[in-house]
C-alpha cells in the first residue's frame, strides 16, 4: 500500500522521490550519520565550539582597557596566576583561600563550592534515602505523597530562590527578626543572614536540599524496587529484624545506585549559580565557581581570559571529583 502511495507521488514531485531513492541507497553507516547530522550540527555550534573557544580564551591575557576581547597569547600563565593567588587582587574573589581561616574558606570560590557540595549532597542522600524508604511502602495515598515530594524538584530555581528569600529577608522572613520562628534569638543567624558569607551558605544549602532531595529519592527508590522481594521473605522466616533486613539486604543492593545518584548530584552541585542569584544573596557574598566565572566576565574590570580560565578549572575540579567516584565505585565492585 505504501508503495502505491509513493508511486503516486512520483508523477507529481520529482525531487522528493529522488531524495527518498537517494536515502534508500545509503549504507547503514551513511544513513546513521545522515540522521545524526542535525543533532551533531546543533551540538557542534552551541556546545563543542564554545568549549574549545573557552579553552582558547583561557590561554590569552586579559585585555582590561583595549577594545579587543583578549590580549596577547600567554600560554598557561592565567592558570598559574590564579592557582598561586597572584591574580587575587584583580579578581572579584580568590579561587583558592589565602589563609585557612573560616572567613577565608567561605569567601574563596573553590572552598565555598566544596563546602556547599559536600554538605548538601550528604544531607540529600540521607533524606533522599528516607523518602525512598517511605515511598517504597504500599499505603493509601502513596501517589499523592510522591507528588508532594517531587514538586519542589519541579519548580523553577527562581521560585525556589524567592521562597527562601521570603523566609530570610528582613521585615518579612519567618526565620528572622520579628518572624514567628525567628532563629536569631537562638543565635543561629546574624542580623542580615542573606548578606553574610556563612549564613547565606547555610541558607543556600538548605534551599538546595529542599529542592533536589526528590531527585535522590527517586533514583534510590528505583534501586529499592529492583530488590528481589523473596530475599526479604527468606530473611523474615530466618528471624531477621527489619533493621537487619535493611542492613544485610537493602543496603548492599542499593549502594551502587546511591553512588550513581550521588555522582549526578555532585556534578550538578559543583555548578551552583542560580539559587545564589535567586535568593538575592549574590555572587559577592557567596562566590561559587560558576559565580566567579560570571563576575570576572561582567565585573567592573573585564577579565575575559581569567573568566575562561576559571571556567576550565571548574570543569577540571568536577572531573577530579568524578574520578574519585569512579575509583570508589570500582572498589565497591571488586568487593
Amino acid at each position, binding site marked *: 500500500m505504501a508503495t502505491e502511495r509513493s508511486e503516486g507521488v512520483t508523477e507529481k514531485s520529482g525531487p522528493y522521490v529522488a531524495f527518498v531513492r537517494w536515502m534508500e541507497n545509503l549504507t547503514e553507516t551513511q544513513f546513521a550519520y545522515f540522521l545524526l547530522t542535525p543533532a551533531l550540527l546543533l551540538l557542534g555550534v552551541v556546545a563543542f565550539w564554545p568549549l574549545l573557544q573557552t579553552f582558547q580564551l583561557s590561554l590569552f591575557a586579559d585585555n582590561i582597557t583595549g577594545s579587543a576581547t583578549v590580549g596577547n597569547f600567554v600560554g598557561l600563565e592565567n592558570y598559574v596566576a590564579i592557582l598561586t593567588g597572584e591574580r587575587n587582587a584583580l579578581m572579584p574573589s580568590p579561587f583558592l583561600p589565602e589563609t585557612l581561616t573560616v572567613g577565608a574558606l567561605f569567601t574563596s570560590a573553590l572552598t565555598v563550592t566544596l563546602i556547599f557540595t559536600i554538605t548538601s549532597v550528604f544531607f540529600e542522600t540521607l533524606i533522599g534515602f528516607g523518602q525512598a524508604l517511605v515511598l517504597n511502602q504500599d499505603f493509601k495515598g502513596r501517589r499523592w505523597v510522591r507528588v508532594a515530594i517531587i514538586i519542589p524538584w519541579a519548580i523553577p530555581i527562581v521560585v525556589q530562590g*524567592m521562597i527562601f528569600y521570603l523566609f530570610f529577608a528582613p521585615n518579612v522572613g519567618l526565620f528572622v527578626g520579628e518572624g514567628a*520562628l525567628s532563629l536569631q534569638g537562638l543565635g543561629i543567624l546574624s542580623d542580615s543572614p542573606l548578606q553574610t558569607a556563612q549564613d547565606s551558605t547555610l541558607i543556600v544549602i538548605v534551599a538546595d536540599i529542599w529542592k533536589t532531595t526528590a531527585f535522590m529519592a527517586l533514583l534510590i527508590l528505583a534501586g529499592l524496587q529492583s530488590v528481589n522481594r523473596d530475599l526479604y521473605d527468606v530473611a523474615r522466616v530466618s528471624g531477621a529484624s527489619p533493621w537487619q533486613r535493611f542492613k544485610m539486604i537493602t543496603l548492599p543492593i542499593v549502594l551502587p545506585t546511591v553512588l550513581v545518584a550521588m555522582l549526578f548530584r555532585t556534578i550538578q552541585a559543583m555548578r551552583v549559580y542560580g539559587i545564589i542569584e535567586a535568593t538575592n544573596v549574590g555572587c559577592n557574598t557567596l562566590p561559587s565557581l560558576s559565580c566567579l566565572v560570571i563576575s570576572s566576565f561582567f565585573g567592573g574590570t573585564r577579565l575575559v581570559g581569567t573568566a575562561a580560565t576559571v571556567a576550565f578549572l571548574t570543569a577540571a575540579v568536577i572531573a577530579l571529583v568524578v574520578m574519585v567516584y569512579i575509583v570508589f565505585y570500582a572498589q565497591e565492585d571488586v568487593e
Partner: protein
Amino acid sequence: MTDDTHASTSAHDDGDAQGSESLRTGGGDPVRAGGGTQTGSARADGGTRTGSARADGGTQTGSARADGVGTATGPAGDAELKRSVVQRWVDSTISDPEKAYRAMFYVATLFFLVTTLFPFYWMLVVAVTEGSNYALLPPTFTLAPFVEVFVQINFARYMFNSLFLATATTALVLLLASLAGYVFGRLRFPGRRPLMLLILAISYFPPAAFFLPLFQLFTGNVFPWFELYNTPGALILPFSSLFMPLSIFILTTFYGQIPDGLEDAARVEGTTRLGALFRVIVPLSAPGVATAGVLTFIAVYNEFFFSFLMTDGGAKDWAPIVGGLIQLQRAGQFEVTFSVMAAGSIVAVLPVTLLVVIAQEKIVSGLTSGALKE
C-alpha cells in the same frame, strides 16, 4: 520497668491474643510461627476467662522476670490498669517491634510532607496577607496581589515567554533526539560508542564553560551580522544543547527495546526508511517520547543560568519568568510589596505543578532510566 510490665498490661487491657501468647512463653518475643491455631484458642478464652488470665499474668510475669530485673510486679499490676493511652501504646510496641516501625513510617511521612510543602504554604501566607503582619496564620486576607503582579510588570508576557521557550525547545529537542535516539538505539555503525560518549560528555560540563563564547556570539561580537541576544534564539539554542543529551539517552533506551521484526515488516511492505521511523518506531515508543518531552519541558521552564544571562530581563526581550521575578525582587519591598513577589511565584509554579500531577509516572521513569541505565 516498662519491659517488665508490658506483658501483663496487654493481657489485662487488650485481652490481646499476642499478649497472652507471649505470657505463656515467658514474656519474651511473640511467637508468630505457631500463631494460627494458638491465637484462635486464646481469643476464645478471652471472653470467659479474663479473670484467670489476669491472675495468671500477674504471677507468671513476676516469676519469669524475677531472676532478671524483677522486683514486685504484683502491686504495680493494679496501677497499670489506669495507664494512659500513650503508655499502653509504648508497651504494646515493645511486644511487637513491627508496630514501632509502622509508627516510624507515619512520623517520617508526615515529616517529609511538612518539610516539602511548608515553604509553599509560607509563600501563600505572604501573598494573601494584607499589610506587613506576616504570621503563620494570615491575620488578614486579600487576593489583590495576584492581580497586581500582572499590572505592576507585564507578568502575562513573562509567562507566555517561558511557556513559549519551553515548548519550542521541547519540540526541537524531541525532533533531533528522536533521530539521534533511533540511530543509537537501532543502527550498528562504526563510531557509535565514541559518539554517544561525546554527547554524554556535554552534560558534564558546567554551563559556565559554554557561556563566554556564546555570549560573545549572540551579542554580535564574533560576526557583526549575527546577533541573537534578546531574542528567543539566544535561549532556545543553549537550552537545546544543554538538555538534548538526556533526551537522546532516554529515547535510545526506548527505541532499543522495540523488536526488529516490526521495522522489518514495515520495510518489506515498502515503507521508506524515514517512513518506518516516523510511522512505526516513533508511535511505538510514544511513552518514551512523552517522557523525554515532559522532562525537557520542566528542565527548560526551571532553568536559571542562561535564562538570567542571555537577555536583559525585560518582557519584550523574551526573558522568561526569571526576568520578571528577579526584577520584582531587586526592586525591593518599598517599590514592590513582598505579597506581589509571592503571588508572582505562585502563578509561576502552577504550570509545572499541574504537569507533575498529570505526568508523575513519566517523570519518575524518565529520571531513573535516564540516569541509571548507562
